[in-house]
């Protein structure tokens, strides 16, 4: 069985599925809440769950670092955040651990789990990841830093400067680009010259790996290798996960203006949740019953999280003025 060959226990394989499902269901909930007028904005991980959970499982969540991007709900959950954390952020409540309600959802940051605070301008975090890795090198630590962005964002100069810097200093950074075929409305062929992000690794003397982003085990394999290279002091790796954004760019987007429904339906057939569920069923790690139980548990979790977040307090207006500088 593939997961065992990769060194994953059956429990881990099921746990991956659970995280993928938790991310999907939490995400779906935010769309419902948005359509009900309860939260102003949704940015989604749907279509990225396998890439994120696969990558997260390759990390040592006790010591590795993460500089994520806005779709990384799955990743931050593996690192330690919960559906409740996510919903507090979606509702912009004071208890939001990322920003105290100051930032939009998807702008992660959690000191508890070494998830660096992020912003909206894309790809800046790839450079921060490099800086964290350099600091780790100065301190002779053996953690790695995983950092992510989309394929559109990957064209920003910052990623290249970061890859070059990390390459020169052989820093343990994993640059993971989640290629979901679109940057809002702009498709891959108008965005990425040559069509492959992975092909850019060679230009910086690092491996550039392209993997099926709908297969959590393949992503796990690629990221695990990158993690090991990093820990051995062999430097950074570029990993490109290929999948598809199953929903509009955000709750403000209307993707019917730039892609056909057929294309979306076609992509849904490769939905990682569906495929990986089948893998687990095929290998007897999941049954219809145990799956239903997982779903039920998750529903309870997401319900409770929604309830808690909805009732939680907004930050007091006076908070506006705090923490421009150290106080």
């Amino acid at each position, binding site marked *: 069985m593939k997961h065992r060959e990769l060194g994953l226990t059956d429990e881990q394989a099921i746990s991956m599925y659970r995280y993928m499902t938790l991310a999907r269901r939490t995400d779906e909930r935010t769309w419902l809440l948005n359509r009900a007028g309860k939260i102003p904005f949704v940015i989604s991980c749907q279509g990225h769950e396998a890439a994120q959970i696969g990558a997260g499982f390759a990390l040592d969540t006790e010591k590795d670092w993460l500089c994520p991007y806005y779709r990384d709900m799955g990743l931050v959950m593996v690192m330690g955040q919960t559906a409740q954390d996510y919903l507090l952020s979606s509702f912009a409540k*004071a208890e939001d651990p990322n920003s105290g*309600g*100051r930032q939009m959802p998807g702008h992660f940051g959690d000191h508890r789990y070494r998830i660096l605070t992020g912003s*909206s301008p894309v790809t800046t975090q790839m450079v921060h990841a490099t800086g964290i890795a350099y600091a780790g090198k100065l301190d002779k630590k053996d953690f790695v830093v995983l950092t992510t962005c989309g394929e*559109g964002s990957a064209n920003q100069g910052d990623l290249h400067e970061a890859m070059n810097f990390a390459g020169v200093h052989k820093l343990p950074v994993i640059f993971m680009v989640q290629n979901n075929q679109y940057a*809002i409305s*702009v498709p891959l062929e108008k965005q990425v010259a040559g069509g492959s992000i992975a092909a850019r690794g060679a230009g910086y003397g690092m491996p550039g790996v392209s993997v099926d982003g709908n297969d959590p085990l393949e992503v796990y394999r690629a990221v695990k290798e990158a993690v090991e290279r990093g820990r051995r002091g062999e430097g950074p790796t570029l990993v490109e996960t290929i999948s598809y954004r199953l929903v509009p760019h955000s709750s403000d987007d209307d993707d019917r203006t730039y892609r056909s429904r057929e294309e979306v339906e076609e992509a849904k057939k490769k939905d990682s949740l569906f495929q990986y569920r089948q893998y687990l069923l095929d290998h007897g790690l999941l049954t219809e019953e145990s799956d239903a139980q997982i779903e039920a548990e998750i529903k309870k979790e997401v319900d409770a999280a929604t309830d808690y977040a909805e009732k939680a307090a907004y*930050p007091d*207006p006076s908070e506006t003025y705090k923490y*421009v500088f150290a106080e």
Partner: protein
Amino acid sequence: MAIMSYIEAVTLAMREEMQRDSQVFVLGEDVGVRGGVFRATDGLYSEFGEDRVLDTPLTESAIAGVAIGAAAYGKRPIAEMQFADFIMPAINQIISEAAKIRYRSNNKWSCPMVVRAPYGGGIHGALYHSQSVEKIFTGVPGLKIVTPSTPYDVKGLLKSAIRDDDPVLFFEHKRCYRLIKGEVPADDYTIPIGKADVKREGTDVTVITYGMMVHFALQAAEQLEKDGISVHVLDLRTLVPLDKEAVLEAVAKTGKVLVVHEDNLTGGFGGEVSAIIAEEAFFELDAPVRRLAGPDVPAMPYSPTLEKEFILNPDKIAKAIRELAEF
């Protein structure tokens, strides 16, 4: 005359100029098929084709830099920054290049480009989709900076910007986009860059402002009229070159001045206006020049409680005017 929204005036000005001059083209993220995330380029793709309504990769420095190259060649590019907040990666190209091309080449080269960018808050855009960035550019000789407040001004000024032989930053207040409607003549009129506009005549207190704050100031003036306070509202429309004459005239009208902007107080353009008044109209003043602006915190937070606290509104402006009137 047609009544249209602020954003429709943006689109109309571009359409007319593209019809008029085949050198004009538009480039930016999602400006093509999607017609822009705010729909400012709606319809242009189908009318002018993908070469003149160009969906670029997600790289602001390249958007600006490509526009600069094309402008130097002889084209009249209109580059869209999806949000003003995302102009930051393009600053080197705008400040080091566009602003200095004519000067450094001793008038042998020029850079007739327009950079359009939606700025400002009040739309739950949080820290990175709400910023006012004009102050970063108002001190850079070589750039013209336009910040219209009404559909009429948008059309006339955007046409002037496109026809201008030097780089113009055209900042569109995104809250005005659909909220502000007004009459827009069908004819091919232009409004000169560098001319302010009295949006309301008054005798007690002068408000000098621009963008969305013009509307808030007008609403405040309405409120105060009932209490017998007569407010003069000067809409700067263009920040650089500043219409100093109009500023000094407006000061002389009332002797009491409130400079208002949504941008942070410290280092905002209001300081420049206030300094000019203090230097050149000192003896016209019946009270110290007052500034009312956003607080000195990094940007507008997401949570509704915080956003409300941050942003100016007619009441806050009315309060400041009243204080001045009573001075």
